[in-house]
């Protein structure tokens, strides 16, 4: 089995037997891979502290294209994002991003997606505290777009008609804004003018705080995005980290 070296992000890691770990990796050249890190839980393991969730670095894998489980020989950490651990909002958003990559990304390598996830983790770790919520929304919408499921907001998603100014209906099943006529025929989430502009701003990749933005707006936008992902990408599988991020349950209990 050849030893290959590739930039990688640890999306998930869990114990396997008494001394080993299994890691789920997003790799730049080989797509999402599972690998066993033998002896990783031993006190004097050569992996040391490198196999932390959301770490970025270089994976050395004994790689067989047909194998479901590769063998991880080493992982050289480039960035470990300790700042993500100091804020549950950042950590939850980063976990949701990792989960989307893990569950919804195509199995074949996707260079742009890999680079995007790495950049988003960097951004979530460093964005000012007041912009964590919008950065998470913008990042996850961008991930949805990168996966090929961008919502249509420039015209009616059903008939292509131009949209009126102001409030607009957003249909999750249809995948975007609806014109006034289609809104009457479909079940939609009505976005008032400021919320519509906020969504357009988030879809454009901006995490600047929209005018009048409150935690209530953030919660509504999280709900909308989570419903969109569940409908278009989840294929019936529960997305636990996304649900955790969406409910922001830690805010209510802290």
């Amino acid at each position, binding site marked *: 089995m050849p030893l290959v070296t590739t930039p990688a992000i640890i*999306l*998930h890691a869990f114990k396997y*037997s008494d001394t080993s770990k299994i890691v789920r990796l997003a790799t730049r050249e080989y797509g999402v891979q599972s690998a066993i890190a033998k002896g990783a839980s031993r006190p004097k393991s050569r992996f040391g502290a490198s196999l932390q969730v959301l770490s970025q670095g270089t994976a050395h894998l004994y790689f067989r294209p047909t194998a479901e489980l590769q063998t991880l020989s080493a992982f050289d950490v480039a960035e470990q994002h300790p700042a993500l651990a100091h*804020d549950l909002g950042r*950590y939850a958003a980063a976990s949701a991003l990792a989960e989307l990559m893990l569950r919804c990304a195509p199995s074949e390598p996707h260079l742009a997606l890999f680079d995007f996830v790495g950049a988003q983790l960097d951004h979530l770790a460093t964005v000012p505290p007041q912009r964590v919520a919008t950065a998470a929304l913008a990042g996850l919408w961008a991930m949805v777009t990168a996966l090929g499921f961008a919502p249509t907001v420039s015209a009616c998603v059903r008939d292509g008609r131009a949209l009126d100014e102001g409030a607009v209906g957003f249909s999750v099943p249809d995948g975007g804004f609806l014109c006034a006529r289609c809104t009457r025929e479909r079940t939609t989430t009505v976005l008032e003018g400021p919320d519509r502009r906020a969504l357009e701003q988030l879809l454009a990749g901006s995490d600047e705080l929209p005018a009048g933005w409150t935690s209530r707006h953030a919660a509504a936008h999280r709900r909308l995005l989570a419903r969109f992902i569940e409908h278009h990408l989840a294929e019936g599988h529960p997305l636990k980290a996304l649900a955790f991020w969406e409910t922001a349950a830690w805010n209510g209990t802290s």
Partner: protein
Amino acid sequence: MSAIDDVAAELARLPGIGKKTATRLTYFLLKQPRSALERLAEAITALGTRVAACSVCGNWSDADPCGICADARRDAGLVCVVEEASDIAAIERSGEYRGVYHVLGGHVSPLDGIGPEDLRIDPLRARVANGGAVREVILATNASLEGEVTATYVRGVLEPHGVKVSRIALGLPVGGDLEYADGLTIARALAARREMGS
């Protein structure tokens, strides 16, 4: 299925035991006297009937409160918070800690669907809020990202109660060679350096 298959199948469900080892253990048990098998069966049954989580700290014990919580010689004002009950045994092995414990029952892990509400954080808050007997809470969660985020969250929960919250130090293992330590551990050790006393 035969009794042999039944035992092998049950043993194979244990962590670190594969089918081969389970079969080997089963044949080992077959060679033991009947009294030894009965003692083993009774001991395992007792785990389910006599052992329960301590209502104070969450440690596994066949008494409630557990031996540590009930020990009047221990400092009840010092609470060490750990992820799992098995971590208590590790700290007790040090022989240096004379406070009491609180078991969270895991760590925050969104990817596994484990949030703060799934951990024993509310009982910890109640313990700290109750009468002000707790002076200090030591957060001894694992030195992983999940352990850190859990510690951060618990600190936030305890902050309004005015209790001192500390985090166990992270760094080089005693007896370890600096040369062989990984960069992250050395970075943590440098960040947590302390002034040497005269």
